[in-house]
């Protein structure tokens, strides 16, 4: 069944890119905002906003911005300023990239908050001790921050992988899995089989397969965490 294989590939690309990028951006932000400075709380609150708004609105906002009719990026920047005649959401590879971008936008704050909590739990005297021994920033990061952050980072990754793998709302709102099947991840394929073609049994089978995939995936990550 080629559509199933296609969806697995799309899901893998979507999940891995979205997880890795949002994790790295979240880590970067957490490291930045771990310092004390004026306006930190305000910045934190602003960064967290995407977590509280409906995923459908997130999807719509991006669709709106990227639209080649009215969007400030799609119509103004790409078409008017750069004179490129592309509609981001109508071109398969670009559409996948855009959907991933929206997902990163929506979920990075969670990575940021988890990792920030982890950073703040690291005792400050460790860094003071390292300073006495002449540790550089990089060495501090490599030998103190990373190892102590690792358990929480793994939890963050597991949560993120599961979320991305199950992600439905944003993709559905932006592309409905299209153009063609370019952004059709497994949950979207399931929706299509179950509620568009009304093959409820087949959709249930897919759901069971997805549960197994998640169990395997998170077990691999947990193994890696314990080692």
């Amino acid at each position, binding site marked *: 069944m080629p559509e199933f294989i296609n969806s697995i590939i799309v899901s893998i690309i979507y999940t891995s890119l979205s997880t890795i990028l949002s994790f790295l951006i979240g880590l970067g932000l957490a490291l930045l905002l771990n310092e004390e400075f004026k306006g930190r709380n305000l910045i934190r609150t602003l960064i967290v906003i995407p977590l509280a708004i*409906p995923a459908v609105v997130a999807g719509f906002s991006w669709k709106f911005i990227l639209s080649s009719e009215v969007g400030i990026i799609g119509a103004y920047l790409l078409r008017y300023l750069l004179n490129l005649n592309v509609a981001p959401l109508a071109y398969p590879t670009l559409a996948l990239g855009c959907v991933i971008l929206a997902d990163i936008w929506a979920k990075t704050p969670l990575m940021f908050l988890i990792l920030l909590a982890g950073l703040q739990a690291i005792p400050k005297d460790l860094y003071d001790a390292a300073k006495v021994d002449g540790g550089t920033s990089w060495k501090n990061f490599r030998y103190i921050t990373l190892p102590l952050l690792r358990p929480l980072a793994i939890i963050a990754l597991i*949560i993120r992988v599961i979320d991305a793998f199950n992600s439905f709302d944003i993709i559905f709102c932006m592309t409905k899995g299209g153009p063609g099947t370019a952004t059709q991840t497994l949950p979207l394929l399931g929706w299509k089989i179950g509620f568009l073609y009304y093959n409820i049994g087949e959709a249930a089978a897919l759901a069971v397969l997805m549960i197994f995939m998640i169990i395997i995936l998170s077990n691999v990550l947990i193994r890696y965490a314990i080692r």
Partner: protein
Amino acid sequence: MINKQVRVYNIFRKIVIYVFSSIYIVFTLFPIVWVIQSSFKDTHQIFQIPPLLIFEPTLESYEKLFRGEIFQIFLNSLLIATLNTIFVIVLSIFAAYSLARFKTKASKNIGFWILSIRFAPAFAIIVPFYIMMYYLKLLDTIIAVVIAHMTFNLPLAIWMLKGYFEELPVEIEEAAMIDGATRTETLIKIIIPISTPMIFAVSILTFLFSWNEFLFAFILTSRDARTIPVLILALSGTHKLDWPMMAAVSTIAIIPAFLFIHSVQKYIVRGLTLGAIK
């Protein structure tokens, strides 16, 4: 000399922090702000290129909204989120208290089972749910959506409250029980009052997640019980998109988020990770 170097380094550090966090904040807020400002444009203004930054705002879309069926949908969303919050809080207080205080071999497993529901694909839950609701003849009713939203909000509330109750000292309860209070009395008269801040936070999160939820509401409703997220999608499916109208509905949909973001900010990680991270 060294002092000066340190000072320059610190200033440099601050600049880096401010520059990068500003870039990220622009990235985060831009889509939202753009949608909000577009909701005050009319159809003509929204199609103008280059996009208008300064324009005469109109409330046209909002007027259209409240004249139509959308008011009913708004009420549906409100009712579903409120009912869901009430049921979830009442059930989860008792469930969380018993999981926190009566430790048996089974209670750990029950805890894990509750948790695993959160990580199952929503899709795996919705299929059997749809079949059940079909045979109960509850499709397209508010009750169906309320029950469906409990599948993810109940584990969340139970795990957050369980963690909180476990941290409360048992001594207070023991003291009350020595004075002749029963378990239930202790829970209602002592535990619940001291847990008000947490219960409040859990209620807000529950409300917010129910208000924001899309997939369950989308699959279980067709006309009468639609919620705001479902409406946004229905509007985007029409052939000729009414962009200002969609922007207006989206703006209404994010009102609760902006009202509550400040008070739930501290708890949102706990909620989304089911208490795994505090």
